[in-house]
C-alpha cells in the first residue's frame, strides 16, 4: 500500500527543470534534432516503434529525445501517446511475400529463388570501433553501390518450398477464425491462442524475448531450429474505409520477419514434418524477430502434444512478463512512498525481535 503525500511540489518542479538541463547536456555542444535521431539512430527508433506498438518515426524519435535515449522510457511515452488517438481503421493483413525486400537470407537453402540478399547488416562487420565515425569532419555522404536491376518483385517464402513437398505443417487461414485478439482492448486471457501470443511477443521486450529464445537453444526446451528465412523491407498497408467499401493503400511500413523451421517427430495423428515458429515486428529488428520465432514455436507445445516444462513454453509466464511497460511500472512502483506499510513492518520486526531476545535470555537462565 502507498499513501498520498503532500509537500513535494517545489522539489518536483525543480526536478523537472534539472532533468531538462541534464537532457540538454553541455550547451556548447549542438542540440540533437528529432530529425537527426530519426535518420541517424534509426535502429533505436525501430525498437521504440516495435515495442511501443506504434509506427510513427517522428513520434518515436521525439520520445527517444525526451527520454534522453532511455528506450524503455521512450516506449512508455509512445504507448501513453497512442491512448490519446482514436482508432480509425484496421488493416488487411500485410502480405510479406510482396515486400519491397531490402534484406533476405536463408540458413536452410543456399540457392533460394530470389537469392541471398545481405542488405544493410552488421553481420559481416569486424565489430572493431570505427574511429572514422568520431572524426571532426564527419563521414561525408557515403553512397552505396547500385545494382543494375532491381530484385525480382514478389519473392516467395522459403517455407513455401517445403510446403510444396508437404514436409512442413501447412499455414493457411482457418475459414472460421474469430476476429484476432487485441491486447489494446481486451485483458490477457488464458489459455492464449496464437494471435494473442504473437501480438504480445511483437510488442514484448526485446531483451526478455531474446533471453527466452536463447534458453530454448541451450536446452530449456529444445526446438531444433533452422533460420528458414529472415527478411526485412517495406510492406504496404491496406485498409477498407467504410465510406468507400474498397481497399486503398495508406502507405508503407518497414517490417522484419523470421521463419524458423523446427523439427517435429510426429505423433499418432500427425506425420513427422517440420513445424513453424514465426516472428514479425515493425522496423528493422532482426534479433527480436529471430528470438520471437523461437519463443512462438516453444509456446506451441500444447498444440503438438509436447509437455510444457520450461519457462519459454509456459504461456502465462511468458505473456505476463514480456511487456516492459508493465514490468517497469510494477518494479518502479516500489519507489512510491510505502511509509505506512513500512512502519507497520518495522513495528512487527521489533516485536518479533523482542520476543526472540526474551526467549534467548530465558533459555540462558535455565
Amino acid at each position, binding site marked *: 500500500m502507498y499513501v498520498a503525500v503532500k509537500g513535494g511540489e517545489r522539489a518536483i518542479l525543480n526536478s523537472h527543470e534539472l532533468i531538462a538541463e541534464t537532457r540538454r547536456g553541455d550547451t556548447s555542444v549542438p542540440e540533437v534534432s528529432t530529425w537527426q535521431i530519426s535518420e541517424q539512430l534509426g535502429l533505436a527508433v525501430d525498437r521504440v516503434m*516495435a515495442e511501443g506498438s*506504434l*509506427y*510513427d518515426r*517522428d513520434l518515436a524519435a521525439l520520445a527517444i529525445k525526451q527520454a534522453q535515449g532511455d528506450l524503455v522510457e521512450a516506449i512508455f511515452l509512445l504507448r501513453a501517446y*497512442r491512448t490519446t*488517438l482514436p*482508432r*480509425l481503421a484496421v*488493416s488487411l*493483413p*500485410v502480405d*510479406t*511475400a510482396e515486400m519491397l525486400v*531490402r*534484406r533476405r537470407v536463408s540458413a536452410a537453402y543456399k*540457392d533460394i529463388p530470389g*537469392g*541471398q*540478399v*545481405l*542488405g544493410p547488416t552488421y553481420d559481416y562487420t569486424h565489430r572493431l570501433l570505427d574511429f572514422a565515425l568520431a572524426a571532426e569532419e564527419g563521414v561525408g555522404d557515403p553512397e*552505396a*553501390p*547500385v*545494382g*543494375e536491376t*532491381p*530484385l525480382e518483385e514478389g519473392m516467395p*517464402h522459403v517455407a513455401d518450398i517445403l510446403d510444396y513437398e508437404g514436409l512442413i505443417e501447412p*499455414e*493457411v*487461414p482457418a475459414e472460421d*477464425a474469430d476476429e*484476432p485478439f*487485441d491486447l*489494446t482492448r481486451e485483458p490477457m486471457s488464458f489459455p492464449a491462442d*496464437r*494471435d494473442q501470443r*504473437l501480438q504480445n511477443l*511483437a510488442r514484448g521486450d526485446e531483451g526478455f524475448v531474446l533471453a527466452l529464445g536463447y534458453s530454448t537453444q541451450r536446452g530449456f526446451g529444445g526446438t531444433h531450429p533452422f533460420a528458414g528465412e529472415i527478411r526485412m*523491407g517495406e510492406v504496404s*498497408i491496406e*485498409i477498407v*474505409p467504410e*465510406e468507400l467499401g*474498397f*481497399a*486503398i*493503400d*495508406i*502507405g*508503407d*511500413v518497414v*517490417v522484419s*520477419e523470421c*521463419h524458423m523451421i523446427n523439427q517435429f517427430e510426429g505423433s499418432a495423428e500427425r506425420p513427422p514434418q517440420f513445424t513453424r515458429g*514465426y516472428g*514479425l*515486428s515493425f522496423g528493422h529488428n532482426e534479433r527480436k524477430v529471430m528470438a520471437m520465432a523461437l519463443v512462438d514455436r516453444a509456446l506451441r507445445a500444447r498444440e503438438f502434444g509436447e509437455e510444457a516444462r520450461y519457462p519459454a513454453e509456459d504461456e502465462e509466464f511468458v505473456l505476463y512478463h514480456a511487456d516492459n511497460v508493465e514490468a517497469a511500472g510494477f518494479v518502479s512502483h516500489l519507489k512510491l512512498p510505502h511509509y505506512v506499510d513500512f512502519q507497520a513492518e518495522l513495528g512487527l520486526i521489533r516485536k518479533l525481535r523482542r520476543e526472540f531476545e526474551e526467549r534467548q535470555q530465558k533459555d540462558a537462565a535455565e
Partner: protein
Amino acid sequence: MNNSPEPQAARARWMGILARATRAELESAWKAIVEPPAYEFLRRPETGLAMVRGRAGGTGNPFNLGEVTVTRCAVRLADGTAGTSYAAGRDQRKAELAAIFDALMQTGERLRIEGSVIAPIARRQQTDRDLKSRKAAATKVDFFTMVRGDNPK
C-alpha cells in the same frame, strides 16, 4: 461515384499514390493550379490510428501486429464531387490536399490532373522503389565453387 470494380481499382491506384506523396509535392501541385477550385470540408483532417495486422507464419490466421498513425480528410467541391484521403502519418495539410486531388480526379479535370500531378508523383515513387531495390540487389550473394575453376570474373 460508380461502384463497378474497374473505376474502384483506378481510384484505389491514385489514392495510394496520393497517400505516399510528400506534402511538398502536393503543395507545389496545388500552387500550380491557375484557378484553384473552391471546396469545403465534409470531414476536417483528423489523425488517429490504424491497427496493422500480420498473419501467423506469413500466410496463416491474422493477428494484430501494432498500430500506425493515420490522417484522413474528406472534402466537397462546388459541383458536389466528394474527395477522400487516408495516409499514414500525422500530416493534416497533406491529407487535405490529397482529398482535394482525389475529388478533382473524379471530375472533368481528371486527365489534366493525372498528367500533371498523379503520373509525375507515381514516377518519382517508382524510381525511389527501384533505387532501394537496386541497392539491395548490389548486396546479393553470388556463390561460386572454388574447386571447379570456373569462377565468374
